[in-house]
């Protein structure tokens, strides 16, 4: 017996064969745990029905006349007006409504061309100011030097009430960066009034000075 005290004791891990049934149960248990972990992960990633959420812009809400502070600029929608006829190209006419939204853009840290603007209606339809008709081209502004540019967007009449303006840095890629979401405060009254209006709205050119308020504009 005294030998046992001084002699190196044998293996320090189980040396006894586990009974077959127990081994099978252990394997099965491990398998169930792995499947449960995978199922839990799947449930978490799909629970919110938001597979594209990682790509969404960081939306910063604001209202008309208030500066919205984004990573790259402070954006203020200084007003909103509408008509069926606007000034570019000797006059653009629509069977819907033209919205004209003058912006004040003050970039931060480095010069930027804040190039994306769109109007989203209450049904989620997005009207981007990117083409020959709906327009927005503010140009590059030095940080701290205000830039004034107008967003011109053509909408169907039923998209006017409750419409929001969305402004972001990159016209092609708005993912994972700040985006202003400005409630334009429009109702059915404006929609009907502007859809019936036929006088030509002047769309101011982008400039470093604030545009003259157009006569009869509603802000």
């Amino acid at each position: 017996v005294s030998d046992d005290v001084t002699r190196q004791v044998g293996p320090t891990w189980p040396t006894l064969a586990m009974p077959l049934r127990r081994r099978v149960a252990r394997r099965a248990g491990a398998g169930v745990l792995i499947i449960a972990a995978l199922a839990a992960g799947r449930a978490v990633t799909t629970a919110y029905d938001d597979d594209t959420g990682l790509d969404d812009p960081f939306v910063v809400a604001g209202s008309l006349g208030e500066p919205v502070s984004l990573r790259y600029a402070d954006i203020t929608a200084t007003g909103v007006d509408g008509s069926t006829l606007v000034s570019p190209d000797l006059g653009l006419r629509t069977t819907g409504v033209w919205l004209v939204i003058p912006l004040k853009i003050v970039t931060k840290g480095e010069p930027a061309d804040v190039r994306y603007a769109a109007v989203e209606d209450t049904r989620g339809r997005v009207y981007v100011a990117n083409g020959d008709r709906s327009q927005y081209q503010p140009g590059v502004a030095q940080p701290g030097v205000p830039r004034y540019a107008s967003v011109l967007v053509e909408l169907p009449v039923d998209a006017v009430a409750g419409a929001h303006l969305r402004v972001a840095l990159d016209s092609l890629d708005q993912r994972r960066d700040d985006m202003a979401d400005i409630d334009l405060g429009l109702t059915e009254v404006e929609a009907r009034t502007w859809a019936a209006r036929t006088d030509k709205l002047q769309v101011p050119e982008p400039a470093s000075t604030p545009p003259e308020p157009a006569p009869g504009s509603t802000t």
Partner: protein
Amino acid sequence: VTAAVIRHAIHRPGWMRRNWWGLVALPVALAAALAASSDRVKLYFWDEGLREPQRAAQGDWLDFRHTYTDSEGEHPLELRVRLDSVAPATTGWNSTTPLDLAPGTKAVAVSLSLEADPGLPLAGCKLAVRDAAGTRYEYLTEIGGSQPYSPCVPPDTPGPSPALGELDKGRDTSGEPARPASWEVSPVITLPAGVEVSDVVLWWDLPDYAELSVG
């Protein structure tokens, strides 16, 4: 009850012991996973900003050493640059027309002396002035009038452009008339009137840049 069963009960290894190598490997695996998924940190963040300065003070020559890549591969980009002055300006670079400045802004002319091999394509540079907080005001060509598109080469003799492979067919790539071996530029930058310029930065391929402190 055999002796083996007793020995086993006494010396049964603990959870730590059985999982020791797994525990050691866990932080290593985590670090490897983070490193493997971090290529975009370099691509979209590090290489997109002014990160690696090469510094000199106003009046001193800076030996700027970097590389540029064109369709022929990577080449050395080596030149000497000296900041001579940052002074108030009333006209654009190469212009006699008074600047139409926005309210609350001013204009400064950044005078630089440069020396480089006439065969080096340099026109694709960017120039900016910064204040003490690091806010950057860049050279813009449209400020009231229009300025030359490159702020760092002589407007009339900009020198060659980088090789563009197939696109160079039928294009004059000689860079003639040749750029002189040394020259001066004084591009004009607009900025808010209250801003004090603390340094001038000049760069080609990010993240390397020349930082020339004022004063």
